[in-house]
């Protein structure tokens, strides 16, 4: 039995009918315990999927090991000679596994996911504008500094500063989310998103300078 199928046996989310052997199968099982057939993705939260606690401070390396182990079993490459239905299910399973891992890997999407799990809609989503004057001012100043930076050394300094700010901000996000302070968490997550975007733009500008 692979670990990927084993851990779902303990979730106890009730039964559904296995499409293949028609017997009972756990609602969130990846594979049928009886006949081994791959199942459609169940409603499994990302933390449960990787067998870790609902804590913002995740051990991403441990999660990645789980992710790779499950991909080994679920990826469509494992079903290349199987029936069309099994291929399609593996596609769905691998896609939701990828989504779970990608969501937890990135601190911003992880924070937003945890807020949504608690019924809080994050800011700055579709169609929403951010109107925190302090943040807007900070973002504007960072952008001006980046525009003014004319050489690689100056940009490196900006990247270093922004990274440090992002790391500190991430810690604050963790404290807010784990403490249930969602109002603060929303604002901090928006700031973290800005900071990471700024670091990315700085790296892109550095690459452009190098190419010129």
């Amino acid at each position, binding site marked *: 039995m692979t670990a990927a199928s084993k851990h779902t046996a303990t979730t106890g989310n009730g039964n559904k009918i296995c499409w*293949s052997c028609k017997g009972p199968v756990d609602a969130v099982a990846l594979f049928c*315990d009886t006949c081994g057939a791959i199942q459609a993705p169940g409603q499994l939260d990302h933390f449960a999927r990787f067998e870790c606690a609902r804590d913002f401070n995740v051990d991403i390396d441990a999660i990645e090991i789980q992710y*790779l182990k499950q991909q080994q*079993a*679920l990826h469509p490459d494992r079903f290349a000679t199987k*029936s069309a239905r099994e291929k399609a299910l593996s596609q769905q399973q691998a896609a939701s596994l990828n989504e779970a891992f990608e969501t937890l890997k990135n601190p911003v999407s992880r924070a937003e996911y945890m807020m949504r799990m608690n019924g809080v809609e994050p800011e700055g989503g579709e169609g929403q504008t951010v109107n925190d004057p302090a943040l807007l001012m900070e973002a504007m100043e960072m952008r001006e500094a980046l525009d003014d930076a004319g050489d690689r050394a100056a940009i490196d300094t900006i990247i270093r500063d922004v990274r440090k700010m992002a790391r500190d901000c991430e810690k604050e996000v963790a404290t807010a989310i784990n403490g249930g302070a969602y109002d603060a968490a929303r604002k901090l997550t928006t700031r973290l998103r800005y900071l990471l975007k700024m670091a990315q733009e700085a*790296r892109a500008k550095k690459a452009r300078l190098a*190419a010129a």
Partner: protein
Amino acid sequence: MALLTIHEPGQTPLPHEEERKLAVGIDLGTTNSVVAMSRAEKSEVLRNPDGGSAIVPSVVHYAADGTVTVGEAARDLIDSEASQVVSSVKRLMGRGLEDVKSVAGTLPYHVEIPETVAGSDAATAEPQMVRLNVGNRVLTPVEVSADILRALKARAEAALEQDVEQAVITVPAYFDDAARTATKDAAKLAGIEVLRLVNEPTAAALAYGLDNGAEGLYAVYDLGGGTFDISLLKMQKGVFQVKSTGGDAALGGDDFDHAIVEHILAARKADGIDDTIDSSAAKRLLKVARAIKEALTERDQIDVAVDINDRETTHSITRTGFDAMIAKMVARTVSITEQVLDDADVLPEDVKGVVLVGGSTRVPAVRAAVASLFEQDPLSNIDPDEVVAVGAALQAEALTGGSDNLLLDVIPLSLGLETMGGIVEKVIDRNTPIPVAKGQEFTTYQDGQSAMMIHVVQGEREMVDQCRSLARFVLSGIPPMAAGAARIRVTFQVDADGLLTVSAREETTGTEQEVAVKPTYGINETDMANMLRDSMVNARGDMELRLLTEARVEARRNILAVQAAMKADAELLDADDEGAIAAAVTELETAMAGDDRQIINDLAEALDTASRPFAEKRMDRGIRRALAGQNVNSVGT
């Protein structure tokens, strides 16, 4: 077979011998193609029966009498029958007329590219796929590629003395959806079932990774005839994860040849010779240029004589001179590489090894640039012309025979939708692992709007017209609502081949529309059907065979599932049910040995019916246990 065969969930049981077809790996290159076959994780390139080179030049000659020649023989005709030879067709895969106009000067052949195609209305028609006038035929790049694939299939069949029907085909990581679809279509025309499209650098990494049992970060620098790809892969615990990729779909060794041609023409012009270059002279010049480039790999200088329109000139080209001609192009590959490292937040010194792929990496200036960027000598102990096919063959074996290794790839270019004002809203960012499914909600912007145009684009730029248009479709039947009230969810699904399907759904009413994205520059279904009919007399037979195989696979799964259930829940099985199931299994197995798909499907259905009472008892017990607060899975195992 044993009555009960239980497999580990998720592990691929070996298919039965009669269903196990040979699967090869194909590197369908711009300049050269290679086919390889792997057994027991030993991959071998397939050569001509008379020994010789593994390389099949990706060159096709179309004779006036309809004879099609591929490879060396076709390349030898480039000089004498220039207008009937097509080379570097890969550069046109999935391309529209507009794209081709912009690269026309760099194409190594001068076949006519018609402004409009007979029978189409240029004013209203969607942008269409390029067609080539070759001799007296009009061909799409897909058909030309299919001819190359047929030749590779024939070579494999001759070398292996068996039918070959399945293949892993490699594509540049940077290939967009249109080019990937075009490649799959070409395989279909050639009668090859594509097990998987694998990115070339990933295949190369696989070839090295399996050999070396490597762990850590690896960069694959792939400079082929017409494309440049750079990929960063992490290898750990048997999983090859692509971290980031980048490249240029129109930069390669062919451009080096062009630089040399330009140099020669400029030198002649300086001597007062004003050449008018026809298609045949251009091809000859390119051949000379290629020879110069190859010679300069070993030597520091080469002298050549060039004779156009009976005016002969001699040229002395040094390695230093050549390096200067291509310096800009090499620098561009370096800056793309730096960008890819940045994307993955990696420094050059974090990279444990650099793999070189593609014939153009033989150019010393290229090697030097790569070595200086990564501060280490790149790996090249597998022939850079063969390494991709070797990796593809390993992957073909892994897919059909099972493997402990896994490739996790990413989407090379962001996918998005056009929104108000021609701005792109990204739905899936590049470097997202595939397969992936992602949705985004949009709304209407006018009161009572009943339809919405969904325009799917691929690329990194912010404006629609700077990205590549993949498909347009209309979601209609939206009920009249105030602007902004409708909730339209557009879902993008990218499969493990990197191919996209888009669906749109109005959430309040459930109005739904789905399109497998047939790229704007692709071949439509009717044309595809016509081509299949024209080119393959046995297309129907192939399709039947595929359906028959699928029916057998499904029937076998059915039997294994029932037998597994009989073993697990034996105490629920009474003699009547057991007898009925056993009889149904025997009948189905007999049918599976035959060739009648319909009978197999009917008897599989009969097995379902025969096992239904047993399945119901199993479900009843499952429900009773669940109600009793017991976990089904912890009982009886």
